[in-house]
């Protein structure tokens, strides 16, 4: 227990540090303790929504990656496993190339249609992945593969039609928070915590599920229901994050593994720690993305792999077999 207490303390320290860095770093010099009206505008309307978006998107992606890895018992699973990202890409590409605008003023065209596209993909994946109201995780996997490939080919057609829009589309594929505002942030700030709470609530059942479906059934866990809840939840988290920030690789794949290597595979600890670490990690990466190539910005997806992979490889080398590799 002592170890867990200290780990939480360290995690919270890093979270606060990264938040502080994100809020105090930027082209305009701001002292957080003596704010002019201009500084206030920059802090409240630019840096704060940006930091919050990156936290909730990072946390959401990492959490959904952890859930998929547990659900499919596959270490290569990540948040984009079920082809949700291709639905989002199709929505974004349609909005950019065909010039769709959002019917709701609180969304931009790209985030509205990428959200819509990802929900459509989510629906189709679960529709084709189920039989008689039930679905097996492997059926779901194949259905996700099919739907993903199908949508991707439409994205390719749109990319051929694109001229000027192509660059914007490429930036969407690499993800980023450079135009984060409260309009793009509120979705993440409101919906992600709800999903996270549900995920924590069923964590014990997910643990039992990992022992095998038969064991789980015999200990009174409704396996089908738990699987369904988690699969929808993880896919929905991915939808939210893609509509807020485009595609950001690596977070959903590697962060859960890092946490497992250090904290073990108990989902009651794994899920919250993964969420917090994923969020912290993405805040840090976004802060780096702001400064590395200034005044231009790096896509945050590039930073996540550039700085995350060395840490991951270091942990991999240090791991002494407890992780079962």
């Amino acid at each position: 227990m002592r170890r867990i207490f200290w780990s939480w303390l360290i995690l919270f320290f890093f979270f606060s540090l990264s938040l502080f860095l994100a809020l105090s770093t930027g082209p305009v010099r701001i002292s957080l303790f003596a704010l002019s009206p201009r500084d206030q505008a920059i802090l409240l309307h630019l840096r704060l929504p940006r930091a919050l978006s990156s936290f909730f998107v990072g946390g959401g992606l990492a959490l959904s990656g952890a859930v998929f890895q547990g659900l499919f018992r596959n270490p290569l699973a990540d948040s984009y496993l079920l082809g949700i990202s291709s639905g989002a890409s199709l929505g974004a590409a349609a909005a950019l190339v065909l010039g769709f605008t959002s019917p709701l003023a609180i969304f931009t065209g790209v985030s509205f249609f990428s959200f819509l596209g990802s929900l459509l993909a989510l629906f189709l994946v679960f529709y084709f992945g189920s039989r008689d109201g039930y679905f097996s995780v492997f059926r779901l996997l194949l259905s996700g593969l099919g739907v993903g490939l199908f949508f991707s080919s439409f994205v390719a057609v749109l990319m051929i039609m694109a001229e000027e829009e192509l660059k914007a589309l490429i930036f969407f594929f690499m993800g980023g928070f450079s135009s984060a505002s409260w309009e793009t942030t509120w979705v993440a700030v409101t919906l992600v915590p709800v999903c996270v709470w549900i995920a924590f609530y069923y964590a014990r059942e997910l643990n039992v599920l990992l022992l095998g479906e038969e064991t789980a059934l015999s200990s009174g866990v409704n396996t089908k229901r738990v699987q369904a809840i988690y699969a929808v939840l993880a896919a929905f988290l991915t939808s939210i994050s893609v509509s807020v920030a485009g595609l950001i690789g690596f977070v959903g794949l590697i962060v859960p593994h890092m946490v497992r290597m250090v904290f073990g595979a108990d989902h009651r600890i794994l899920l919250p720690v993964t969420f917090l670490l994923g969020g912290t990690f993405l805040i840090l990466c976004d802060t780096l993305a702001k400064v590395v190539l200034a005044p231009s910005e790096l896509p945050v997806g590039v930073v996540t792999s550039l700085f995350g992979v060395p840490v991951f490889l270091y942990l991999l080398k240090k791991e002494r077999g407890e992780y079962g590799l």
Partner: protein
Amino acid sequence: MSLPSRISAARVSAVILFGLFSSGCAPSPQPGERTFVDDLGYPVRIQRSVKRIVSLLPSNSEMVCLLDCERLKGGTRYDRFPEELTQRIKEKNLEVIGGGFDPNLEKIFEIGPDLILVNGPSQQRVTLPLKRMGFPVFSLYPQDMDGIRRDFLLLGEILDREEKARRLLADVETGLEEFRRKTRRSVKRRVYLQTWPDPMITVGKNSMSQWILDLAGGINIFKDMPFDSGKVSLEWIIQRDPEVLIFVDSQREFAERIRELPGWREINGVRKNHICFIEAAYLRRTIQFLDGVKRIHQCLFGTVA
């Protein structure tokens, strides 16, 4: 597949087979041929009287058309300039062979060009079969304004329109001189030029737009960005505080909105409502850049030069 295209496919494959065996032992220039070195450094043998040109790049189509539009027989679906060219496409005197990366090779074969103008390295893959078939593929790939001038003169030489090329260039130079004389002033305006709103994309150091902004009397606030174009954040724009904001193409809605958005209001140019719009075409890579320069100048200083 329709009959004509089946026939031409057969012809193409025959020529490709022939090409496979016959290439590699290129004889020296025949009488009536000249050798020119293209922008990739390849010596290319070209007929003395070039009559049928296919261009795979809008800026090359434009240059050919300025010199002698009749000889341009194939262009891309993106060709817009000069006006004469659009007219010729409408009248079907000029065939659209597709885009620069997805040209219809059979169509090019049917046109039977004696000169194919291409971009630099990025179009090499598409043009390999054309080279194999024995068509003279020539790369015009200017990197900057000097390159554009040089390539225009080279094209003039190839088309035997040297005089015209020189005259056109001289006209541009005179026009530029005149513009400079009229607009001689020490003040320069700090400009933010946005080519895309979400994410916000602007132009950097090596772009044609940067060059045009500079001539027009503006200072690109992101001229230290070491690429043609890149993503920036609002905070950087606030920090650089431009006096003028120029939006490319249809960003009127975006420009309307920013007046109400927090953050944007901190910018000098937004507060003074010094905002203009310009079509991307005026910022293209061309020797006819003066129109763009004049438009930007008018936006910056409110006076016509």
